[in-house]
């Protein structure tokens, strides 16, 4: 069978019940009717050749541009025009003519395929008008809302700008105030410091006197023990020898467990032997570590200095804790006491307990009234200064936040400003999605589980002519063997601001649909009359 047919057809374009007859070859749009003149040679629209008119729509492709077969599928690059009266006209590729699939709502593309097509143009037109009308209403209302949003945003922006200006003025004052208070503080602190030092010094001297006395007693005791040990008699030559010291391993300087002769000599200032007078100079080298030999044998003496009570605590501790630190700490004046406790969290608590009790024993006497008054005054100056400084910091933060907000691109008319610092949620069967515009998007399982970051604000990423139709959120939580999650937010005009859907078209690349009045365009024409029939 051959498909020779339809050189010319009568196209009945039916519009709202009024039939209109237009004679032109099948598939030719009205705009090109003049090129197809019956009984005159047809020139391919690209001008490449002319053919007899009976070869137009004869189901054989003669023109390279496909223009001789507007109504058949013969040309690979042809297109077919359907009038679609009652709906909108369209072009389809010629390959869709008589392919058994109804493409044109007026059924004209399936004239010889056996496909059962129904004319659905009226219905489609009606639906489209409904949709358009609804859309127009939404757009209209949305656009009004948008105007409102723009006003608000502009007002808000203005307010914020002036607020920043105000705040910057206030800040200047505050800056000055801080400086004044700093001077006040420093001025008050100087006499406080001096009074405290005086007080401390007096106490130190008192302590030193007591310590010196104790020390002397201990030295004498030690000297006696050391000499007693070696010679067994109180000879004329009362002396301590190197070997005697060597029996005291606790004096070992390099902590290798033995006190070598050299080390012992070092302690004794290079001498082989010392007598009572020179022992006074040796004593400071060894006193901190010296263990009285009588001690283990005797029941703990009542007068044992707190130094030695503490010692076993330190030694037994698994963590090495330098003894020097402890003695230094004791010697330190109390002014630094608070600092110490705040700063050094590493000190094992076991150390603190005995230390405390020791302090209690040797507590510094209270300040006299004058000193205390100076301290109180300085404290007040400090508090005032800190308060002012804090206020300044807070103001700086506020200014920075407002400036950051002002730096965002909230659209040509700042219409997206209202979305800032808001969040919108959508709950699906599995997850709760949360969009916080200009900030981040997250996904949280509905029934417990941790939140996943689907991206933080990146940029507007719509097409060149309107970049404000898409938002891109990037660098979310990483995917296993894949990229970091990211989300594209598609904005459409709506009266309300809501997330309408989310999907994951590609692994870890999310798509979120979001309606907002901010993208509603100004209605082109307020006239909502039914769709024009371009063909008529």
């Amino acid at each position: 069978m051959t498909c020779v047919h339809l050189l010319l057809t009568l196209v009945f374009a039916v519009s709202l019940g009024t039939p209109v007859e237009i004679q032109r070859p099948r598939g030719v749009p009205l705009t090109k009717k003049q090129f197809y003149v019956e009984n005159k040679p047809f020139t391919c629209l690209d001008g490449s050749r002319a053919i007899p008119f009976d070869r137009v729509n004869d189901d054989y492709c003669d023109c390279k541009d496909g223009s001789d077969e507007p109504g058949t599928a013969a040309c690979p690059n042809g297109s077919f025009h359907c009038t679609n009266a009652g709906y909108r006209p369209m072009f389809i590729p010629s390959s869709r003519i008589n392919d058994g699939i109804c493409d044109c709502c007026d059924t004209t593309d399936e004239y010889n395929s056996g496909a059962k097509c129904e004319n659905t143009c009226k219905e489609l037109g009606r639906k489209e008008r409904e949709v358009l009308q609804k859309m127009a209403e939404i757009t209209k209302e949305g656009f009004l809302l948008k105007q409102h949003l723009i006003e608000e945003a502009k007002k808000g922006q203005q307010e914020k700008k002036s607020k920043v200006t105000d705040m910057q003025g206030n800040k200047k004052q505050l800056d000055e105030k801080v400086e004044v208070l700093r001077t006040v503080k420093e001025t008050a602190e100087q006499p406080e410091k001096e009074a405290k030092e005086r007080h401390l010094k007096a106490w130190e001297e008192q302590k030193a006197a007591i310590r010196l006395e104790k020390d002397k007693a201990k030295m004498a005791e030690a000297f006696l023990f050391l000499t007693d040990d070696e010679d067994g008699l109180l000879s004329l030559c009362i002396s301590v020898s190197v070997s005697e010291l060597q029996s005291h391993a606790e004096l070992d300087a390099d902590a290798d467990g033995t006190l070598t002769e050299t080390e012992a000599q070092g302690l004794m200032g290079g001498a082989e032997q010392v007598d009572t007078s020179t022992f006074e100079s040796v004593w400071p080298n060894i006193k901190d570590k010296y263990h009285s030999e009588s001690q283990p044998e005797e029941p703990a003496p009542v007068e044992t200095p707190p130094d030695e009570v503490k010692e076993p605590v330190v030694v037994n501790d698994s963590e090495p804790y330098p003894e020097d630190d402890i003695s230094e700490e004791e010697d330190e004046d109390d002014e630094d006491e608070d600092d110490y406790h705040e700063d050094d969290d590493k000190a094992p608590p076991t150390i603190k307990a005995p230390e405390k009790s020791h302090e209690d024993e040797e507590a510094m006497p209270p300040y006299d009234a004058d000193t205390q008054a100076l301290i109180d005054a300085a404290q007040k100056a400090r508090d005032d200064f800190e308060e002012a400084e804090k206020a300044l910091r807070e103001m700086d933060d506020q200014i920075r936040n407002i400036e950051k907000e002002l730096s965002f691109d909230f659209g040509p008319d700042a219409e997206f400003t209202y979305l800032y610092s808001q969040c919108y949620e959508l709950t699906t069967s599995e997850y709760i999605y949360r969009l916080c515009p200009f900030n981040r998007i997250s996904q949280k399982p509905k029934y417990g589980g941790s939140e996943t970051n689907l991206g933080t604000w990146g940029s507007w990423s719509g097409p060149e002519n309107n970049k404000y139709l898409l938002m891109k959120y990037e660098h979310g939580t990483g995917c296993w063997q894949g990229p970091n999650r990211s989300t594209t937010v598609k904005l459409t005009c709506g009266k309300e601001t809501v997330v309408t859907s989310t999907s994951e078209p590609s692994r870890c690349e999310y798509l979120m649909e979001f309606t907002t009045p901010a993208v509603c365009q100004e209605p082109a024409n307020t006239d909502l009359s039914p769709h024009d029939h371009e063909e008529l």
Partner: protein
Amino acid sequence: MGMWVLLIVLLCVSARAVDRSNFKTCEQSAFCKRQKELKPGQSPYRALLDTLELSDSRITLQLINDNNKVRLLLELYRLQGNMTRVKINELKPLKPRYEVPDVLISDPFTETLSVVSQDENSLVLSLGGKDQRLIVSAQPFRLDIVEGPQVLVSLNSRGLLAFEHLRARKDTISHKISSTVGSMWDSLKKEEDKPGMWEETFKSHTDSKPNGPSSISLDFSLPGVEHVYGIPEHADTLKLKNTDGSDPYRLYNLDVFQYELHNPMALYGAVPVLISHSTDRTMGIFWLNAAETWVDISSNTMMFGKILDFVQVSSEAPQTDVRWISESGIIDVFIMLGPKPADVFTQYASLTGTQSFPPLTALAYHQCRWNYNDQEDVKSVDQGFDEHDIPYDFIWLDIEHADGKRYFTWDPSKFPQPKEMLQGLMDKRRKLVAIVDPHIRVDSGYKIHNEILSKNFYVKNKDGGDYEGWCWPGNSGYPDFTNPEMRAWWASKFAYEQYEGSMENQYVWNDMNEPSVFNGPEVTMHKDALHGGWEHRDVHNLYGLYVQKATADGLVERSGGVERPFVLTRAFFAGSQRYGAVWTGDNAAEWGHLKISIPMCLSLGLAGISFCGADVGGFFKHPSAELLVRWYQAGAYQPFFRAHAHIDTPRREPWLFGPENTALIREAIRQRYALLPYWYQLFYNAHRTGYPVMRPLWVEYPDDVATFSIEDEYLIGKDLLVHPVTDEGATAVTAYLPGKGEVWYDVHTFQKHDGEQSLYIPVTMSSIPVFQRGGSIICRKDRVRRSSSCMENDPYTLYAALNSQGSAEGELYIDDFHTFNFEKAKQFVHRHLSFSANTLSSRNLAPDSQFSTASWIEKIVIIGGSQPSSATLKNADGTESALEFEFDSTLAVLTLRKPGVNAAADWTVILR
């Protein structure tokens, strides 16, 4: 629940993220190691010629192993069509050994073997004409097939016949054997147990081996042969490599994650068919065994080289030795004696059947992805093709479509209305494939599982309980597809009323049917699992074939036997060609993987499986736009044309790479659709004859040594030569055009080139170098539409490319494109088209068939023709009419305008 999911994910991930070390080498496979320890030398086997028994169909005689006195039974058959079958089994095995069922389409027809002569040490049998003889040598045992003075093939010439006879475990024997059978005991004692005979452990998996050692081996020597091919599936060269010094090629169906190229590791399928080729002869060896198999290939060509052309000493001629080793079963080998490539294809097809004839739509373009997320996604991808005017026939759904990976179901939230979706596709004359894998979720709320459980259809573990393993759904059972009752039940599940939501435009894909067991040894089933009385060891390579067979049967049944099925499988075996298509599994978006798709599909074609393709774009990883375009261009000219992508890769529908690349991909797919009549006719021929659709050049040019190793180009049928661009940034390819005196025409430009030359072809991104052989007529449908069904009644254009004698011929095959009526009711059109002496005519090749088509001949293009003064069309009724024509003198292309005759009619066009 959360933990459950996590556990599954972890298990799947860790089991699938494997490397080479997760799969055995020969050294790690106990039987392979034992067999490889045996070196060539004197065979201990002796033929006992006095046990000869001769019947009409076969001869039998016994072989004895002089070391252990165990006797074997040798059976020799002469088969119709120039084949010899050699079977060797134990004479009295302790228990029966597995003989592979269901692969041969019938008992092969035998021909009489007659004894020509016999002496003390030999027996000469006649194999019919042409002086073909089968010589049995007694000591050492050896078989030679000779033709005249020429040895074609020798068996056990290197003494590597080794048959591990079944035996009882020694510790159990010693108690039972009494002293009265001492002599036998003595001989048994000589055979020491070797490691791995009774138990074998690989990577924490223990194979209990209750039957002990059972492996078999035999060597074949092929004198004069330098080129051997086949034994798919391997990601390796077309020409098989010498395996001296490396592992043998392995045949053991495995789910290999991110497989590597160019090595002999086993992949998803196995066809134990090896083809040898030389300018003298093409032959084949079909080793019918479904157990784990290793194939060693050793050839001495390298050492001798070309000198041999002048030295006529046969003993020093090039030779290839092939050794087959299998873990269990018997030796059952078919030697296909050719002598031409086409004869070997016919011979193999007579044993295992031919390619199933797919519905036309299956040859069109397939769009797949793991996964199209939901109905909306399917709809929008479908629309995307129409918006970008790109044809496609099938959209595919991977595992995520099912409800919790319970196959035969739909995810209720993603696919709540499957029929609505299918109807939407049907309205566009398109189709859908949904995956159905053989692992079944163990879940008491799952109907399929419960039925299999109640019918006791699951594979059993070694202790007799239902075998369970991990796969996509988590804990899974594996139906015993070797059981015919189970297969019948499975097939019945595809009935429309059983498979809820399914419709006639829904087809099926079987993945993971090696079978894949994530936590099993080598990601597959334990060898000591039980299929009725047989161990999984015996049937392993057959499992995938049975899955596809049962599924294809189901699709036929659901249509009342009317519709041709279409089922894609990943695992396969000899005979799988009868059930549908295969693809090369989980490849990657790399240029190397694009390249290897050619030799992989060529190897499959040589082994009978024509309907082969690779995932276009590469499954793993993200292809560059250039790679994707090149892959579409290559895939458009391979039999199974499907794009597929891993779930973790970015989307890659054809229009996502910019308008230029979209146009390039559109053009490649359109070329495929225009050529569908040619593909369809080739598949009809493959179905009739077993000839591969996609062929290595040497198949058509067996005397041209230059073609023997070519694997970057190939022939579709015999008339189209394709050299796809498979290199990144390529600016040119060099194609070899074969055939002395042949001419080839570039199908895009009609430029003419002489044969037997290497042609340098500059290429751009739009180039797909394809050549039509002078002397051929190819029918195309140049009106490409959005799916192949839409083109059903479209007219044909004939492209007649003339040879140097000015003649050409071709065929045209037409039927309803989807039912069995071509076979059952002879409803088809088969025409022979020929052009010679300026006369083109269409002649009926099947006068007893009947079919009416609406298609007609719209145009005839004669390439390499000359300008006539007139062209006259003569119709069957004698009426004549003048045809208009155009002649392009620079290219010598004559175009006849609109003959308009029906494609089924007799007609003649005379040029003057």
